[in-house]
């Protein structure tokens, strides 16, 4: 079929960019890797949220997951740090330039093992960034060793059984005061997109623990991080809707079936309850939910906990607003008079 019509311009967002302009380099991960699905949802979320791409700071550590920051938003800067220590690099960058939008992508090895210390302190400080854990329960780049999020009793392809309990990153995050804690599945694109948009609008650290099966090393029948297991066991605790601050919002909703959460920028998250009486702003309930899920090996997904108005580290440190990196050199060096006064006091 031939056509004489002009090629139709792709749709653009509020900052005049098409979704393609939020893309990055070609993925080098295995075909069918869950991480690539997450990368596409990040790209889509950045586009739909009209994020200025040059403000994006893509932060990662080491591992398959950490490679993926090269696969989206190449109009932003990226920093592949050392293994498990991306939180520190992100913290330093955000302290001096709060105008950046930091998106960290990590894995279960990078976060729950070598990076556990930095992860804990990132959460404790509440550094503003989206922190995505692409969780597959194994080390991919070193060929299939168990990670610390592998469920007790799960088996490797070699038949080796994991005897240790899994670290529940969401429970840990809630305990440490994280104000946006979500669990999702790379196979549940709609939910993931909604959670990502909410995370981008949230102030403070937003943790997304996303089960993202490793097709090469951990997708077999005895794995609890396989596509099949996750699809069969996923129980969403609600359906998530995100209404950005610039859109009209209907004030009518039934509090019995829907929970409305207003974020600091005026955006709203609407959670249509699938689990009776679950309140995502109740810390004790959120922790109980995590513990219950772990005890029953249930795969509960959704926005487990949200505390939208919690102060972030930049506010607490007095550096929010105009970035320190933008202060002209002339205002960085105290005057001769100030130095002379200091010297006088030392005489």
């Amino acid at each position, binding site marked *: 079929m031939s056509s004489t019509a002009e090629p139709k311009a792709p749709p653009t967002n509020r900052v005049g960019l098409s979704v393609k302009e939020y893309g990055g380099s070609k993925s080098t991960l295995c075909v069918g890797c869950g991480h690539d699905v997450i990368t596409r949802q990040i790209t889509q979320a950045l586009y739909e949220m009209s994020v200025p791409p040059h403000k994006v700071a893509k932060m990662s550590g080491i591992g398959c997951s950490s490679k993926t920051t090269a696969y989206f938003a190449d109009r932003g800067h990226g920093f592949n740090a050392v293994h498990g220590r991306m939180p520190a690099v992100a913290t330093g960058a955000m302290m001096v330039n709060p105008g950046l939008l930091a998106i960290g992508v990590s894995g279960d090895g990078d976060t729950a093992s070598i990076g556990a210390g930095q992860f804990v302190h990132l959460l404790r400080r509440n550094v503003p960034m989206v922190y995505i854990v692409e969780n597959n329960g194994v080390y991919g780049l070193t060929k299939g060793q168990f990670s610390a999020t592998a469920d007790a009793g799960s088996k490797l392809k070699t038949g080796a059984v994991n005897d240790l309990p899994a670290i529940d990153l969401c429970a840990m995050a809630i305990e440490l005061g994280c104000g946006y804690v979500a669990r999702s599945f790379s196979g549940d694109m709609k939910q993931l997109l909604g959670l990502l948009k909410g995370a981008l609008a949230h102030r403070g650290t937003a943790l997304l623990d996303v089960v993202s099966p490793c097709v090469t090393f951990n997708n077999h029948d005895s794995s609890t991080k396989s596509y099949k297991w996750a699809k069969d066991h996923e129980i969403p605790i609600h359906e998530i809707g995100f209404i950005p601050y610039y859109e009209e919002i209907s004030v009518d909703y039934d509090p019995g079936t829907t929970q409305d959460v207003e974020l600091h920028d005026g955006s709203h998250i609407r959670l249509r309850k699938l689990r009776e009486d679950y309140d995502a702003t109740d810390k004790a309930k959120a922790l109980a939910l995590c513990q219950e899920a772990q005890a029953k090996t249930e795969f509960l997904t959704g926005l487990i906990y949200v505390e939208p108005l919690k102060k972030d580290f930049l506010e607490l440190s007095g550096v929010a607003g105009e970035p320190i990196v933008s202060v002209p050199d002339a*205002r960085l060096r105290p005057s001769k008079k100030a130095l*002379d006064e200091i010297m006088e006091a030392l005489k």
Partner: protein
Amino acid sequence: MSSAVLEEKRSEPGIRPPVLNDFSIHVATANGSGSQSSNSILMRAIFQMGIPVSGKNLFPSNIQGLPTWFTIRASKEGFIARRRDVGVLICMNPETAHEDVRTVAPGAAVIYEESLKLDTLRDDVVFYPVPFQKLVLELVTDGKLRRLAINMIYVGVAAWLLDVDMAEIEKAVAKQFKSKAAAVDINMKAIRGGHDWAAKNLTKRDPFRLERMNATAGKIIIEGNAASAIGCMMAGVQFLAWYPITPSSSLAESLIDYAAKHRLDPETGKPTFAVVQAEDELAALGMVLGAGWAGARAMTTTSGPGISLMSEFTGLGYYAEVPAVIVDVQRVGPSTGLPTRTMQGDITSTYYLGHGDAKHILLLPASVEECYTMSMDAFDLAERFQTPVFLMSDLDLGMNNWMADPFPFSDRPLDRGKVLKTKEELEAHVAKFREFARYRDVDGDGIPYRTLPGFIDSLAATYFTRGSGHNERAQYTERPDDYKNNMDRLARKLETAKKHVPRPVVAKVPGAKVGVIAYGSSDFAVEEARVILGRKGLQTGYLRLRALPFTPETAEFVKAHDRVYVIDQNRDGQMYDLLRLELNADASKLSSIRHYDGFPLDAETVIEGIEAGEKR
């Protein structure tokens, strides 16, 4: 009363000729007993009398109870290194009293609590028993204050014995307690009580005396860490991440204090300096790299154990080419490895820190003045060369009190290096060089250009930061030629750095066949040793290293001498080793003098080492 009358009144004549303004006072106390203020007051009063002075705290890794010593050296010639022999000992710690008395030089004066009954230990020193416990009961009514006030009594006794002007003591007390009337009163009462008791009850039988000079007018007293902190602040540091570790913590704390006052934006009132106390040293340097990558002048402070933890991030900083300033206040050992004692212990490990090939720029301050100026240099070099730069201070320099001229203001503009910060700068660069390639050497000096995240809205401005696996365009690659090309450029960058690091200070002595090479805090003892050796007839040339990598002056200096002694404050002769690698054929001219007992280097060690070498 004239001093001659005073002399007659209280001295037994003809014991020894007087020793004026040239001895050490050693105060032995228990840690946490509050003697720090007393020692500062005594030192400051001597300083105010115009006598060159230095103060060293030889302290344990402990908060309360373990023995600690404070040494005040008065030197009319201006020598401020540690002095091995003690002239005046003040024994306040029963635990160490016997050992302290045994180790002083013959002829020393020993002030001690009379109940310790030390006077039977030796017959070649002069003992002054003082009933400190009894006096403090009479002088201080508040029981809680007695433990601290007892230390002020020895200040009074020493002041009488050594002729310290009481008016200067009073000034020093006012400065110490920031003129808080109640504190000044109670402490002056204890000091006067000690002074009056001594005047009434003691007879001067030792030769040590202080006499007013005019060698300290206009000078300051400062610790090296505070000097570095002021330097960093004046360099416009924008971000500090740190983890507490002795002996570097006071640097971070002074910077935070100074910056709180002096680093508020004059227009907005907002701080122009941010600080994070990190969870460990790994995170501290990670934060610094993040801030440096984002375009800020960023730094951390640490000591040897922290340096080892920073190894991986330092390697990343080197290959990703991110500016960072790391102040290493060197100390002895890991874990419980004499953390409160000094050492030049991290020279080789830091020079090569990281894995794979890496050599770093190290600055080697030898005085509080250089702690100040080199802190400023460090930021300029870090940003110019886009790499971690290390300022290698040490505990002796960093935590002890040093006399100096007031630091001069620098109006040299900050060197922010090759940064394309605006769209216009980027466009001009692209017009000239076809494109912006993050790691391409367009100027031939090994230093590429960089952009900053979030500044320019253009695909042409962005790049991906990672380790050594990248090509000129910062794209990931494992191609052999790309890797090698990058390594060669980094080597070229270090060559360029040799033209920009602080040059050595060279004292050329006509006819001298013997040369000395030293660095850092060894300088004080080396300068003193050279004067004394000169008086004994051995003239020495001197080269003081101020940075690594080495610059051509060093090889020239060795060439010009027959024998060269390299002074290290470590067991393995770390700088000696680096010099041998650098010098090829001339390396055989080098001998190594090594001091490594945890105490600061003294002139005698240098003299003995050189004399022994010259006898061979």
